[in-house]
């Protein structure tokens, strides 16, 4: 399918993997086609091949844009619902009591265009506003800009949001809807990649890292999970996507019984000796 010569496709896969951790197997030619075609046109290239040639010549700006275009930014408000129910019913009550008034430190890793951190900000607001410091990171500057603006299309605000939440938490802005200022201010957005060092963020009380590990190879998943565990408070919680797990990948984390997708620090004795 792809118009790329095999050696250039291999180069593209290697570079994207080194830079972002994303694994593009030979079966991902359709993805490369559909994501890079529009980027090539936008950047003034006749096709994908000259775009990859520009990468190979060392054009850093093109390199970054290619990596961002190949990442999947699909998200919506209250995606999968269960993690947000867990946050409201299990995580927030336990940690708020333990923190005795200190603001909860929450990190949404690979937060894309902001629907996940803003969903948490809405939940906290609805609970009467317990103090929380929500950090949202993503590797893509473009989606972070959108997230910071807090401006969503009519289509986006109708996926996962009840009408009551829409009218409570958003203002109409022409054809679009903007999340209210106090909720935008409740979330800090920073550009950061899961392959980067994030030890400086520790200790986090809650980490949401959903539907991103699925794109990585086993070794990368394993390393990221160990580093997420290191960034997590001793009694903190990690939430993964429905198709993701720590089992067989990290000794530092254990599933929380009875709560699918929820993980906590493993007891020290369970961990393999360093």
């Amino acid at each position, binding site marked *: 399918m792809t118009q790329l010569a095999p050696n250039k496709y291999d180069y593209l896969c290697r570079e994207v993997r080194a830079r972002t951790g994303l694994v593009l197997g030979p079966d991902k030619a359709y993805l490369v086609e559909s994501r890079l075609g529009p980027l090539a046109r936008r950047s003034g290239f006749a096709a994908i091949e000259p775009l990859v040639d520009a990468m190979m010549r060392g054009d850093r700006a093109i390199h970054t844009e290619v990596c961002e275009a190949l990442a999947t930014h699909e998200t919506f408000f209250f995606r999968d619902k269960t993690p947000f129910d867990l946050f409201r019913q299990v995580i927030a009550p336990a940690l708020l009591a333990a923190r005795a008034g200190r603001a909860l430190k929450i990190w949404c890793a690979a937060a894309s265009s902001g629907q996940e951190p803003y969903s948490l900000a809405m939940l906290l607001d609805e609970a009467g506003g317990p103090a929380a410091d929500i950090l949202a990171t993503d590797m893509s500057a473009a989606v972070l800009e959108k997230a910071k603006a807090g401006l969503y299309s009519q289509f986006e605000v*109708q996926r*996962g949001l009840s*009408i009551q939440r829409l009218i409570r938490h958003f203002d109409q802005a022409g054809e679009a809807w903007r999340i209210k200022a106090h909720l935008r201010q409740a979330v800090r957005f920073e550009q950061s990649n899961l392959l980067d060092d994030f030890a400086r963020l520790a200790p986090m009380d809650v980490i949401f890292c959903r539907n991103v590990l699925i794109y990585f190879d086993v070794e990368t998943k394993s390393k990221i999970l160990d580093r997420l565990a290191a960034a997590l408070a001793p009694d903190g919680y990690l939430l993964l996507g429905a198709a993701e797990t720590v089992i067989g990948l990290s000794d530092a984390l254990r599933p929380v019984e009875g709560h699918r997708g929820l993980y906590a620090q493993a007891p020290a004795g369970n961990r393999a000796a360093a």
Partner: protein
Amino acid sequence: MKTCLVVDDSRVIRKVARKIVEDMGFGCEEACDGQEALTACRKAMPEAILLDWNMPVMNGLDFLVRLRQEPGGRKPVVLFCTTENDMAHITQALRAGADEYVMKPFDGEIIESKFAEAGLV
């Protein structure tokens, strides 16, 4: 089987909506204005109503107010489904007893999401 009544004066919209609700496992009835919808509800109250606003004979809002006064008329979950997409219309619809609000244009994902929000699926 749960039933959804699709109320819209556009035959095309009714056809699209029917396909979506049937794919979600609902039976589908159709009405092309509020008066027809009221007649249908008096015969059998559906579980869900997908309701357009601007229609000839009786509009969606007038229908909703009348429905809620009917015996058993508080039972159906009513989702407005309209091009009236401003805050004033939305709040007016909710005050009149609507449960959810779909802004046109819609697709299957939006209807499914809104049915879930309204506790129908």
